């Protein structure tokens, strides 16, 4: 951050207390310094003033009328009374007005108990209504979209949701329609409210008008057990509250903080909580017997695992043992993992199990610095689907701070802010590098542009410019795994080499921790072939994923909110996790499994306190740079495949969360209208996407203007349609399947 110009302070007297605040401070913010609670509905620190609800009325001396604190800028010598009789009378009147048509169904309202309208009515309201007429009746449960339900009667039209949608996400789909007592929150007539941040509006809503479908009528706030922990659905590391009741995680709530989440949560982090008690979750170690799984005890499972490892080491040497995992483990577990296997002489350790190849940027920065950047360069897959809350920072930087957004590569940003989109590094406008503060967001997959720009970056550094990098990877703790040493060293082999070796039968035992290479590894064909040829695969997972098809032994692990430990977020900050949910009885955390394995193999492991200390102090070491790939061959006119990320794609927790049924992406191939026409397919057709002998079968065609011409976009990480059989950017052919007639008619285009 550059030094701020010195800000003039002004002195204001609030309720007899003299305060010095920077010039331009809003009265409502100034009053927070003395814990003076000025009630607000429409005002929100992150959304700014709107002046709609009028509840924040205060008395300011020398002003004839009551003023709203949320939109009044303090001036020198201002004398404010926030609790005078006149103020109270004003608030009482405002509340009476707000409550005119507000239904008194607090007993069944999801907000009841944590509702601002309730609280302020108790504090400032007049108690009984003077209205004799019936209240206006409106629809009670209007389905706004796949996640949100609106109760029109309860809405007090504070427009927090509308402004969130406008200011924060820039999506502008929510508006206020009509006027007077008829006005309601709505989207355009036929569009549902679809947003990756939709859950935030339920939290912003000061009344119970907007409610989450997943939490509707599940509980009352006072019944919930609340734990503050870190979200590990992606690498942003948002802090959040987990609310649990009777062993069910019922909802998550954002934490008001500026460091990581900025007070928001994405829908993946917020809503992917329904899998913990899924009946398909593994509850005891499973051993493969032909095509059947047999439940076995932990002692047998660990003994078998240890025996296989020992035999492999003694007969074919430690290089015939492979370990992949760490990106979903805690720092403690990742360290233990590499320590344990290194003690055995195994060097084939790697966390990379997907497309991402690097997790630690050369120059780290904080999210606040990202927000303050003047130019933001995004390379490869945009963060809107891999690290959504980070994307909000980018949107904020672009819209509120006037930063310039340049996206490089086949994908455009995917968010609704203004951007400069170029296909190649060479096309980046040269003035993009003129800014003082530059942020680089790199998907961590294909390092080619980084290599190309290496000299340029070094130059910028030398010029003393602020240059910060972010790698929003697909695995939440990839950076932690790197810092804990889960990388091949001393001649060890990385995932790709391990798979290559395994394909030739060179790997005897493969231990996988929370990874799903069959679905996620960049070279799906290689991964599948390798897994098929490996005689003994141990997989630590919550569910029987695509990779479990190849496993010999599946060990039930702990889920995200069942962990207690530390992770690193993508900026390198150590984040603390607290267990908020009790894991099923048969499951062990990865750490416990490793301790048991170490015991069975007679390996000494660090004490718990040493481990924690190690997890809190990430090692700073040079990391191998990402893979550099040759550009895929193919003429200009060829059809290329673009593999798209989606926050609700995946074969694990999302796939087994029945509440997310509506949000999960369908196997869809998106084409530009002209491309579709050239290929002779139309929306709703079923197609196969073929590259050589590999094929992605049975995709439903969608035609959209937003797609680029000459490309076909497919979604990564869908069980049943694993896009990783194709290489990103590869040249493909599309063949149309003759669909059974009813399919198209039934509107299979949905989603």
């Amino acid at each position: 951050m550059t030094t701020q110009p010195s800000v003039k302070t002004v002195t204001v007297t609030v309720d007899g207390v003299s305060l010095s605040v920077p010039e331009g401070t809003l009265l409502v913010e100034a009053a927070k310094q003395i814990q003076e609670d000025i009630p607000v509905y429409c005002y929100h620190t992150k959304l700014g003033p709107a002046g709609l609800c009028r509840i924040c009325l205060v008395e300011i001396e020398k002003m004839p009328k009551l003023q709203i604190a949320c939109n009044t800028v303090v001036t020198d010598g201002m004398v404010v009374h926030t609790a005078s009789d006149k103020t109270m009378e004003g608030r009482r009147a405002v509340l009476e007005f707000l409550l005119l048509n507000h239904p008194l169904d607090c007993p069944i309202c999801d907000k009841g108990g944590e509702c601002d309208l309730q609280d302020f009515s108790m504090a400032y309201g007049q108690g009984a209504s003077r209205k004799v007429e019936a209240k206006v009746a409106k629809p009670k449960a209007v389905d706004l979209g796949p996640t949100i339900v609106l109760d029109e009667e309860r809405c007090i039209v504070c427009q927090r949701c509308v402004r969130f949608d406008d200011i924060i996400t820039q999506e502008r789909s929510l508006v206020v329609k009509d006027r007077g007592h008829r006005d309601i929150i709505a989207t355009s007539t036929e569009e549902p409210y679809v947003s990756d941040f939709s859950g935030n509006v339920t939290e912003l809503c000061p009344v119970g008008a907007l409610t989450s479908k997943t939490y509707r009528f599940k509980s009352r706030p006072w019944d919930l057990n609340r734990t503050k922990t870190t979200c590990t659905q992606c690498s942003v590391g948002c802090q959040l509250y987990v609310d649990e009741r009777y062993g069910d995680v019922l909802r998550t709530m954002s934490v008001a903080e500026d460091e990581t989440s900025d007070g928001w949560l994405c829908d993946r982090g917020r809503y992917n909580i329904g899998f913990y008690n899924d009946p398909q979750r593994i509850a005891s170690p499973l051993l493969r017997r032909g095509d059947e799984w047999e439940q076995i005890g932990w002692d047998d499972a660990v003994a078998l695992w240890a025996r296989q490892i020992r035999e492999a080491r003694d007969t074919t040497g430690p290089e015939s043992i492979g370990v992949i995992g760490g990106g979903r483990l805690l720092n403690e577990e990742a360290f233990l993992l590499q320590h344990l296997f290194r003690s055995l002489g195994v060097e084939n350790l790697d966390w990379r199990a997907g497309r991402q190849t690097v997790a630690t940027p050369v120059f780290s920065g904080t999210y606040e610095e990202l927000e303050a950047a003047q130019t933001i360069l995004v390379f490869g897959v945009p963060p809107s689907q891999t690290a959504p809350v980070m994307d909000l920072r980018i949107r904020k930087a672009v819209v509120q701070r006037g930063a310039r957004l340049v996206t490089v590569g086949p994908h455009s940003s995917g968010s609704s802010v203004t951007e400069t989109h170029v296909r190649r590094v060479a096309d980046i406008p040269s003035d993009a590098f003129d800014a003082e503060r530059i942020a680089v967001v790199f998907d961590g997959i294909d390092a080619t542009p980084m290599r190309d720009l290496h000299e340029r970056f070094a130059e910028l550094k030398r010029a003393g410019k602020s240059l910060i990098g972010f790698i929003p990877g697909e695995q939440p703790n990839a950076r932690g795994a790197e810092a804990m040493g889960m990388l091949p060293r001393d001649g060890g082999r990385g995932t790709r080499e391990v798979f290559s070796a395994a394909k030739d039968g060179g790997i005897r035992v493969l231990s996988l921790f929370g990874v799903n290479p069959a679905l996620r590894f960049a070279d799906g064909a290689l991964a599948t072939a390798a897994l098929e040829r490996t005689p003994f695969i141990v997989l630590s997972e919550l569910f029987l994923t695509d990779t479990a098809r190849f496993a010999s032994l599946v060990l039930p692990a702990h889920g995200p909110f069942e962990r207690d430990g530390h992770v690193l977020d993508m900026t390198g900050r150590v984040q603390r996790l607290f267990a908020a949910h009790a894991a099923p009885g048969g499951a062990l955390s990865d750490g416990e499994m490793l301790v048991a394995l170490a015991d069975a193999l007679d390996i000494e492991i660090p004490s718990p306190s040493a481990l924690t200390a190690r997890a809190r102090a990430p090692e700073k070491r040079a990391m191998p740079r990402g893979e550099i790939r040759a550009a895929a061959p193919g003429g200009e006119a060829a059809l290329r495949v673009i593999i798209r990320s989606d926050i609700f794609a995946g074969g694990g927790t999302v796939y087994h969360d029945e509440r997310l049924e509506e949000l999960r992406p369908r196997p869809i191939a998106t084409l530009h209208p002209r491309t579709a026409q050239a290929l002779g397919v139309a929306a709703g057709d079923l197609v196969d996407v073929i590259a050589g002998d590999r094929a992605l079968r049975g995709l439903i065609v969608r035609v959209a203007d937003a797609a680029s011409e000459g490309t076909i976009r497919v979604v990564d990480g869908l069980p049943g349609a694993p896009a990783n059989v194709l290489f990103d950017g590869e040249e493909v052919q599309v063949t149309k399947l003759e669909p059974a007639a009813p399919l198209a008619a039934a509107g299979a285009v949905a989603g």
Partner: protein
Amino acid sequence: MLRAVIAGFVAILAGFRTTFGYLFVKKPTIAYPSIKKQHAPRFHGLHELRRYADGKERCIGCELCQIACPANAIVVVGAENTPADRRSPGERYAARYEIDELRCIFCGLCEEACPTDAIVLTPRFEMSDYRRGSFVYAKDRLLVPPQGGVGSAPDERPNGIPADLGAVAQQKSTVDIATGYDATWYGRALKTERRGLAG
């Protein structure tokens, strides 16, 4: 010394007089199973969940009784009504409603807290059983039979949604609770029976 001995002796004699006197006092004991006492009209006994006269459950699953309960004896889990399966007026009903009668201290605060007069304490008090588990009363035992409903949901909209639960709370009255049961002597045995169910 002698005085103390005499005083002690007299005290003992006084004790003898007292105990002897009680021999002839009328005993207050009631031979309980064969003879039952009339209780006060608002005696706090076993709970019941009431319905409206149209058979809809009064309970809207708001969990206020649960939070009011000083003994943590109540568990309520709400769920949403659907048009096909309409349990209560309004949107929400209690999917689970359980009272642990062993924990319950019969203070009646649940009754006080209930905005719809759904949970009431009846004069029934005989609920002995051999298993602890059977003292957890769920909806199957708490809910009165459909024909046992009282009153109608006040201020209903065309399709049965209460316009204003606040109004319901204001109209709350314990009158029909006091008279909802016949708690009278029949010969020597007292019967506590839900009105309107017998015959």
